[in-house]
């Protein structure tokens, strides 16, 4: 049963290994807990889960598993469920935001109607899957699914142990972030950008020089020191903000600011869709414009430039005078882009849109051409390639 439980947790997308299973067995063997299901829940959680963002997934997996064990014979759908009761269950399980979402998305009545249709269509008890009523699926009807607009067919009233269990409360729902590009991976990738030089202050023993001087002194030790190595890489980042890129920006900023300590100098700029006369220093204060010509004058050509954007727009926004959707631009966007491209030695573009789709978008293909194919996917692999190119 423990092994089934373990596999169940693993299948729910949590990375658990054999070591954790063995630890759990060991812990049970040492009688740390009383034989109570709550205690087992806490124990297995602290041993198997190593990040609070998986708490919610664990709660769900735990719930599904023990549901199966304790309620093998209970079939919710054998008898017809009174609509009144269902509705109550349904409304109870929604959080405030979800309720709001529902209001904007789907009328409650409509959802109920659809549910009844599905219910009539379905003959058997069902678990998993995307359409039928049952447990654990993504269909909007059933229990423990991941569809926020779903109808949850209640667990609370129908079970033989005490109501409102900890794992049913789903307290950690907000902590599950599902970020695909892990901060740690990106940081490790960005670390490769480092370039060390020795500057400032003598604080490291210079062994070669000490040996040489000591030999010259006829054996009398003459200690020599040299400066510590410091990272010399300087980076300018340009973020596309507004519209399609907004979901990514927060993530990007966090990623790069976390990596900030790795670099000697790192500055952010923001633009909308494409580069024109100026960019913003601060996304909240767009009146403070930094002109491209000032950037080119101020920063040396050894700065590494990284654009982060989806490059998805009308092609005229790049190639035409007055192509910008926000203001009148005297020269086409691409001419400003060339100012940057020509001044700096290393320029790369990170694009969160999957690589396979690039060729179908005119503006992405064109931007890729402008940047001489130095456009990379915003994935671990892509960032690695970009870093490799930038650090050459």
């Amino acid at each position, binding site marked *: 049963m423990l092994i089934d439980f373990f596999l169940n947790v693993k299948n729910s997308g949590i990375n658990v290994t054999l070591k954790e299973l063995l630890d759990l067995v060991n*812990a049970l063997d040492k009688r740390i807990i009383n034989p109570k299901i709550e205690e087992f829940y806490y124990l297995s959680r602290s041993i198997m889960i190593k990040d609070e963002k998986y708490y919610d997934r664990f709660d769900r997996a735990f719930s599904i598993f023990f549901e199966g064990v304790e309620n093998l014979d209970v079939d919710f759908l054998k008898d017809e469920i009174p609509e009144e009761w269902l509705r109550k269950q349904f409304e109870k399980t929604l959080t405030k935001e979800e309720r709001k979402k529902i209001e904007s998305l789907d009328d409650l009545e409509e959802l109920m109607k659809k549910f009844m249709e599905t219910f009539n269509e379905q003959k058997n008890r069902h678990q998993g899957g995307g359409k039928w009523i049952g447990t654990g699926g993504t269909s909007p009807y059933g229990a423990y699914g991941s569809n926020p607009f779903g109808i949850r067919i209640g667990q609370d009233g129908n079970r033989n142990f005490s109501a409102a269990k900890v794992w049913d409360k789903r307290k950690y729902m907000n902590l599950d972030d599902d970020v695909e590009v892990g901060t*740690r991976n990106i940081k490790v990738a960005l670390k490769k950008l480092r370039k060390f030089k020795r500057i400032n202050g003598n604080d490291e023993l210079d062994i070669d020089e000490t040996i040489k001087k000591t030999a010259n002194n006829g054996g009398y030790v003459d200690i020599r020191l040299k400066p510590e190595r410091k990272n010399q890489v300087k980076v300018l980042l340009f973020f596309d903000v507004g519209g399609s890129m907004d979901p990514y920006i927060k993530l990007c900023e966090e990623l790069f600011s976390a990596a900030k300590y790795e670099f000697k100098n790192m500055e952010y700029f923001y633009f909308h869709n494409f580069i024109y006369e100026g960019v913003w220093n601060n996304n909240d204060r767009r009146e403070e414009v930094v002109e491209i010509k000032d950037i080119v004058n101020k920063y040396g050509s050894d700065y590494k430039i990284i654009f982060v954007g989806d490059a998805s727009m009308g092609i005229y926004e790049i190639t035409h005078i007055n192509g910008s959707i926000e203001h009148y631009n005297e020269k086409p966007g691409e001419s400003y882009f060339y100012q940057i491209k020509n001044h700096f030695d290393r320029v790369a573009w990170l694009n969160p849109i999957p690589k396979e789709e690039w060729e179908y978008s005119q503006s992405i293909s064109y931007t890729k051409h402008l940047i001489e194919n130095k456009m990379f996917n915003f994935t671990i692999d892509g960032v690695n390639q970009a870093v490799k190119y930038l650090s050459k």
Partner: protein
Amino acid sequence: MKKFTSTNSYIATHDLELAVNSSMILEKPLLIKGEPGTGKTLLAEEIAKSIDTNIIKWHIKSTTKAQQGLYEYDAITRLRDSQLGDSRIQDISNYIVKGKLWEAFEAKKKVVLLIDEIDKADIEFPNDLLLELDKMEFYVYETKENIVAKNRPIVIITSNNEKELPDAFLRRCIFHYIKFPERDTMEQIIAVHFPKIKKKLLSEALDVFFELRDVPGLKKNPSTSELIDWMKLLLSDDIPRDVLLERDESKAIPPLHGALIKNEQDVQMLERLRFMLRRGK
């Protein structure tokens, strides 16, 4: 061995107690995460108190290296001493400076070793301590001796989530996330700190506090430690009760807010919110 439970100075929820006890029994490091100010560091001290032993604290900074926790070999002093003909140089162990881990390994009885804010260090830092924390031993190359823990210390590691920790490291730990206390737990916590507080004042202060935490968009949410500071101020100033109650009317934000809100933008935002609220009435 004694089990860890809530003490009369520290309230631990049941799941936290269980996590601490399983880490003690399984002899694995306990990794504690949670919002700042939920008592992560304090926990280690309380564990030490409850099993009646000493605590060794190792505070991690961005420049801390794993090796510093084990030992450091002071080669330069030795080289200098050799020039002066000091007899100390014959014994290399005179120049080995012991680190916190070594101290903990050597201790006569089981101690609590706190590795505080491990996420501050370089991302490879936890990886460098894998073997040492797993086997509780390390090798000193200079003196060719193997240091093995006499009593495996209870290792408590705290993290503020600034950096992600490597999987291999996590796999060796027991993990617990301290959730922000709910109202009744919070009442217990306050009662522990201020046993004489009036029930009414407590419940009103908590109202203000939880209301404040519900304000969306605050840069820094007030936490338990801030609440305790604030209560201290309230009690010492002997604020009349009605000041707390009239918060909706003329006063923009809670009295003595300096203890609760640590950011001037947050103060401004609250004032703006109150203003809008009043105008809306």
